[in-house]
Structure formats: structure tokens, C-alpha cells
């Protein structure tokens, strides 16, 4: 509970209607799309930068935790108010402030939905490249805070490669514009550090992004493989031939079954895994690349290969991929999703380990992921109403991440560390590494009010309950 005086201060800043603090209403804001939740003490619905700055000053004055929040689609607990305090909801800030078709840039408020921006840009023959599977709902502000990815990041890069500049509010309530339009700046790259800082360093109030011309030709192919391993080898083979497709996605047999039952997209249900490959460019180039890719896939045990013949068919193939996690609800109502990344060549090994861990805990696991990047998404499927199973689910997830790290990988490719993986940070980074990161935190948020309890290990809350699978040394110390 906030002190009544604090709540009054917040109401004075944003208006009575824009502060939510009744216990019932607050429960709506206790979660994002990850597992753990905690209700805020108040939700503030800000509409302007000035309001965000003023709310930040109230939080600073009273040293109350404050957590910026977009659509709440995050998968690592980034928007969860684990220490209570203020949830700073920015979804009312949803204007596209400027779209410059000549410069191919857009300046947007943080609450603009990812897909909306691409739809508006399409009127000028442009698109916004980062495309998380949640793009129908997730916000550009959330994307920038988490440095989100998506299937097409294989070729186009993740959010940070597309953000030119941001207006941010720091923990003291000061408003700054970081970076900007020019390709080089004089001084430190604050913008680059703030993108992906998961709400722990600033609140984002405007984002200037690059837009790209919509490619004139796109070709999309679906190919089946007898096993995940065969599909993994095919992925390495495509890239090894010097071809970087715009997307290269894998779904295992479990996922394909659920997706096909739901979307009837013509996915081959007898397959151990399928690959969805897309290339874009001019027609000559996509044709040539697709022929080359088709040959590599069939040389690597690919079968039932099918190229989308119409845009509608392509959309259906993608609907299956982007809606895959929803379709998994046919198997179990809940999922626990990690997004560790491994060097691409370790995919067969790490997927075998993921499979073994699932079997060990008797939990179904569905893999649907960005294979070209080596970015896993094992979905552990369960029913939350079965209280016994939760501990098993958590242990299985933790073991999977451990396997990722043991193979020289990283804890998260695009979902963020948040609340979910902060305990595992010491698997990857030494005390000195984390200390260097913490210096940035201490400079920008000396009182620790911004999204506390995230990214950095928080021994008071959650400890690692695994010592690691025996006999395997961590390879992550890479120098």
C-alpha cells in the first residue's frame, strides 16, 4: 500500500482517473507473460513525457520502486512489480509522432503497438523489421526496453540495430534525448546502453526507429525432416553455404501437431521437425536463393518441401509459426518458456539435452525457435492447477538453461533476464563482470528505484537450486 499522501501526489500529477490503487483492480497488473506475479501498490496511466517525469520525481522523492510497463507481453518478468511500488503504464502514449518516408524513420511514443507501426509504414512501402511473435500486442517501448527480437532478426538484426534515438526519463525525473539521427555521435553511446536495460535504467518516452523498404519479392518454404537433429544440421548447412535467409525457424513434432490441429496450414504431422525458411530481395535473387536452399535441405534429409505460392499461403505458414505457442494450449494450459542461445553448431546437442531433461521430469516439451540464430525456445508444458508440478517445471527449465550455458551459450537471446533468470547470471559472468554492469546502474539510478530485483542476482529472493549437471564444466568463460 502506498501512503495516502503519495497516492494524492500521483493523482495531482496525472489526474484522479489515471491512478489505480484499489486492490481488486491492481491484480490485473500483477503479471506479464511469464510465470511469476506480484501486484503493484499503484498503477499510473501516464499520457505525456511530462507526466512520466513528474511520476518519476514522486517515486524518487519517496524512494518507491517504479516499473515502466507496456503491453505486459514480456516473457521474463520485466514488467512485474516484484517489490511493489508504482507500475508506470505507458500504453496511453500511443501516437506515431512522425513518419518520414524520405529519411525512412519514424518517431513513436512507447505505447505504439509493433505491428501498427509496420501497418502504417506500409502505406509508404516501408516496414519496421523487428517482429516478435507478440507483435500484434507488444509495444515499441517494451521492445526497446527488452531489445526484442523475432524471426526476421536473423538477417535484419534485433531492436537495438533499429533504434536511432530515444527520449528517456532518468530516475531523478530528468528528461534527455539520447543519440539521434546522425550515424556517428560525439560522446558515449547512452542510447545503445539503455536499449535492452529492461526498465532498470530509465523510462522510455519516445523512440526514433529506422524503417526499411518492403522487399519487392519474398519466398517462403516449409520443409519436413525426420528428426530435430537432421533439421539442425540442415540449418548449419544453409548458413555454411554463405546464405543468410531473412528467417530460418524450426518447430518440432510436438509443436507441429498442435499447430496443424489449430491452423490447418498443411504442416506435415509425421515430421520430427519442420523448418520455415524465408528469403527476400528482388525476384531474381529470391528465386536463385530458394533453388540453392531447396537443394541444401534435400541433401540434408529434407522432404515434403513446399514453397508458398500466394501471399495468403505464406501468411498461413507464418500464422502457424507465430501462433505456435498459443496452439500449444491444446496440449496443456500453461507453458514455461526459456530462450537460451547456443552457438548454432551446438543445436543438435543442446536439443538432445532439452529432450532428455523433459523426459527425466516427465514433462512434455515443445520446441519452436529461431534456429538460424541458435536461439532456443523450449516450451515446458504443464497445468498450473497441479501444484506439485511447479517445482519440477522450474527445475527442468533451470537444467535446460544450464545445458545452454555449458555449451558456450547465453541465458537469453531476446526475452530478457528480468526476474526469471537473474539468479543464473553468475553462470555467465564473473563478479567483476557484474560489478562493471552495476556501475552503470549506480550512476543512472543511485537509489535503485527503477525496476528493482531484475537482471542482477537477488539472493534474498531466489537461489539457484541446481549445482549443475554433474561432470560437465562450464565453457562460458571464454577468454
Amino acid at each position: 500500500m502506498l501512503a495516502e499522501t503519495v497516492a494524492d501526489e500521483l493523482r495531482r500529477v496525472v489526474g484522479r482517473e489515471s491512478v489505480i490503487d484499489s486492490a481488486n483492480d491492481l491484480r490485473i497488473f500483477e503479471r506479464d507473460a511469464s510465470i511469476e506475479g506480484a501486484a503493484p501498490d499503484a498503477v499510473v496511466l501516464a499520457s505525456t513525457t511530462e507526466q512520466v517525469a513528474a511520476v518519476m520525481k514522486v517515486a524518487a522523492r519517496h524512494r518507491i520502486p517504479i516499473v515502466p510497463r507496456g503491453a505486459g507481453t514480456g516473457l521474463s518478468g520485466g514488467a512485474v512489480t516484484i517489490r511493489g511500488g508504482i507500475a508506470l503504464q505507458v500504453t496511453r502514449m500511443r501516437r506515431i509522432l512522425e513518419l518520414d518516408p524520405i529519411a525512412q524513420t519514424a518517431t513513436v511514443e512507447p505505447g505504439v503497438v509493433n505491428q501498427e507501426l509496420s501497418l502504417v509504414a506500409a502505406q509508404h512501402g516501408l516496414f519496421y523489421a523487428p517482429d516478435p511473435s507478440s507483435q500484434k500486442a507488444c509495444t515499441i517501448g517494451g521492445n526497446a526496453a527488452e531489445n526484442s527480437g523475432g524471426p526476421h532478426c536473423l538477417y535484419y538484426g534485433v531492436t537495438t540495430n533499429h533504434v536511432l534515438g530515444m527520449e528517456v526519463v532518468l530516475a531523478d525525473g530528468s528528461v534527455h534525448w539520447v543519440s539521434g539521427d546522425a550515424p556517428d555521435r560525439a560522446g558515449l553511446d547512452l542510447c545503445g546502453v539503455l536499449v535492452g536495460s529492461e526498465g532498470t535504467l530509465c523510462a522510455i518516452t519516445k523512440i526514433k526507429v529506422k524503417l526499411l523498404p518492403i522487399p519487392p519479392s519474398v519466398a517462403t518454404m516449409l520443409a519436413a525432416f525426420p528428426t530435430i537433429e537432421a533439421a539442425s544440421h540442415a540449418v548449419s548447412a544453409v548458413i555454411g553455404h554463405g546464405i543468410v535467409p531473412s528467417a530460418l525457424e524450426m518447430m518440432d513434432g510436438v509443436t507441429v501437431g498442435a499447430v496443424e490441429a489449430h491452423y490447418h496450414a498443411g504442416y506435415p504431422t509425421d515430421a520430427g521437425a519442420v523448418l520455415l525458411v524465408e528469403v527476400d530481395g528482388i525476384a531474381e535473387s529470391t528465386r536463385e536463393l530458394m533453388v540453392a536452399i531447396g537443394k541444401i535441405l534435400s541433401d540434408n534429409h529434407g522432404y515434403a518441401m513446399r514453397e508458398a505460392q500466394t501471399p495468403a499461403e505464406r501468411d498461413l505458414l507464418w500464422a502457424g509459426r507465430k501462433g505456435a505457442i498459443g496452439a500449444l494450449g491444446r496440449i496443456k494450459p500453461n507453458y514455461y518458456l526459456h530462450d537460451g542461445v547456443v552457438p548454432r553448431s551446438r543445436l543438435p546437442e543442446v536439443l538432445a539435452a532439452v529432450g532428455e531433461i523433459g523426459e527425466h521430469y516427465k514433462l512434455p516439451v515443445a520446441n519452436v525457435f529461431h534456429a538460424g540464430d541458435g536461439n532456443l525456445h523450449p516450451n515446458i508444458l504443464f497445468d498450473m492447477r497441479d501444484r506439485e508440478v511447479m517445482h519440477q517445471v522450474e527445475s527442468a527449465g533451470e537444467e535446460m538453461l544450464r545445458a545452454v550455458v555449458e555449451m558456450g551459450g547465453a541465458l537469453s537471446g531476446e526475452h530478457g533476464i528480468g526476474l526469471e533468470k537473474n539468479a543464473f547470471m553468475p553462470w555467465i559472468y564473473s563478479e567483476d563482470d557484474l560489478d562493471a554492469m552495476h556501475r552503470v546502474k549506480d550512476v543512472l539510478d543511485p537509489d535503485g528505484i527503477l525496476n528493482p530485483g531484475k537482471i542482477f542476482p537477488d539472493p534474498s529472493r531466489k537461489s539457484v537450486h541446481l549445482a549443475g549437471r554433474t561432470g560437465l564444466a562450464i565453457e562460458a568463460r571464454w577468454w
Partner: protein
Amino acid sequence: MVTAPAVETPSTAEELAHTLNLAAEERLVVVPVGGGRARGMGDVLGTCDVEIHTTKLDRVVEHSQADMVVSVEAGITLEALQAELAKSGQFLPLDPFNSPGHSIGGLLATGWTGPLRLRYGSPRDFLIGIRVALPDGKLATAGGRVVKNVTGYDMMKLHYGALGSLGVIVAASFKVFPAPLHDVTVASDGGWNAAVHALSTPVPPAALELFSSGHVLARYSGSRDAVDRVAGDLGWKRVETDVWDEHSRRGPETWARISVPREALRRIVHGLPSDAEWWASPGTGIAHWAVTSDARSVLGVRAKAESAGGTLVMLAAPDDFMREVGAWGTPPATLDVMRRLKHAFDPEGALNPGRFVV
């Protein structure tokens, strides 16, 4: 510099960190040196007590061909790294001016790029891991050896382009790229209009450079059919690809980098003295100017670049000229935040004091 500085050439990262720490504790002024190709960058140092050269840190730590990832020590030259990658048909898409001889650490610290930035972006986009020696003697790693990674803060961005003001980069990992299937360069003497035309081809060029003479070089790479069609449609003269090597050797004694939103570049370049020698990447918004005019004219161009939202940074100049013009221009509005970051990493101000923006 008043007296000749001591030169240290540590052969391990740990040794380098130790040397840096000793110097910082004794309140000495430390200048990190890589290949020495960008030594003229930044404001004139009042003094320099110790130069720490990364020359001996020149190993390829690991190149995983299948993963298209390479990890190197910071002192390796760009050419040595490219030679290693070329064995597997891969390359790092970085072609800075004043080549050859740049060290990887130096390129990261200075943020220098070349024509290929048009297609591939800068190392800011493909640097995936970094290790830095800090003045307190610690070695801090961030990122990793995977191509997509949000594990912790993006410290690569903090050190990239920071001119060694927060720490000395000792190692780095990159996402590398397959050598293009087909690589064609064509030339024209059609000036800006030709450049603009070539930038709007259905397959955009990988690099496009315009020279003050009106000469234009355009490089197209990708699948054979697409490249041949697009380059053919332009109807320009084919030239050998090694024109790019020649181009990258440009490094005048006094020169400036103009970096502005790309749609403003034409106007800014038109404001240069009429006899100025320059070359530009109209697709990215960057131009390099071999300065032969006086300081006032540089300041005039800088004012225009800054009012367009960009910068004019001196890459090298005689000391007196550099003092008069200043290396960086108007400090950013966030200077105070940057200074606090500098203080958190280098409280004694040992690293390049007064040379960088902070």
C-alpha cells in the same frame, strides 16, 4: 607531449590490466595504443606518462566457422583477422580509412568505419562480446559468443566509440559474414545525381562512394543473377574490386569526418570550400574531408553539420589547428551523465584525460 612517455607492451590481458592499475594508482596519464592509425583523433593531450600498446595481444582466440563467430585479442590487425576468416570464405565487413594496420581494439575504440557500412552497418551492429581492462585492475567481460544475446547490459555499446576513456579493450567477439557469392564494382563520373540513382536500385549497393571530383564507385554483392541485372541496368563501367583497397588507404594529415542525417549530407557537402577534396557515403550520411582551409572554415561547416543534427569530428590535425577547432564540437546535452559514467570507471581520470568528450 612534454616528455617521452614510457611504453608498455603487455602480452596478456591480465598483465595489461595490472599495468593500467599501477599507472592509475600513481595518478599517471595513460594512453592506450593499438595499430596507431588513429592517434591523431581527439583533443590534444596535455601530457602522457604511459602508453599501453596492445601489439602483443594479437591472437585469434577462436574462430568457429560453422557458427560464423570469431573471438580475437584486441591488438590483432584487421588484415590479419581478415586473412584468418578468408580461409573459410568469411569476412568482417569493415573497411576503415587510413588502412592498413588498424588494430581491432583501435577500430572499436574509435568507431571508424568505411564504405561497407552502407550494407552491413558498423561494428556497433556486429560486435557481440567484449573484454575490457579497467583502471582498478579488473577485467570485465560482457556479451558472449552467440549472435543474439540480451544477457545483462549491452556493455559493448558503452565501450564502442568511447576512445578508451572508460577502459582498455583487450578482446572482442564478432558475428562474421559469408564472403558474397558475387561482388561487382561499377564506376561513373556522374556526381550526386548518379550516386542518388545508384542508391535507389532494386538491390541497394553494398557500398557507394562519391568523390569531390564527381567520380562515383558502387559495389553490388549478392546472388549472381541479381547483381548482374542491377549492375547491368545502371550501365556504368566495370572496375576491379581492388579500387576499394586503394580507397581505404586515404588518410590525409588533416581531415575531418562529417556525420549527418543522410538526407542532409548533400547540402552540408555543398557548403565545403569549392576546391575542397572530400569523399562521401551518401547512403549513410558520412563524408570525409581532407582539410586544407583554415580553422574558421572548419568551424563554419561544423555549425551547419550540428544544426542538421550531426557532428564534425577532426580525425587528425596539427596540434595548434586541433586546439583551435576542437576535436569534437559542441558537447552533447547528456554530458553530465557521461561524465558520471566516466567517473564510475576511471575515477582518477587516468585514461586519455581531456582527449575524448568526457
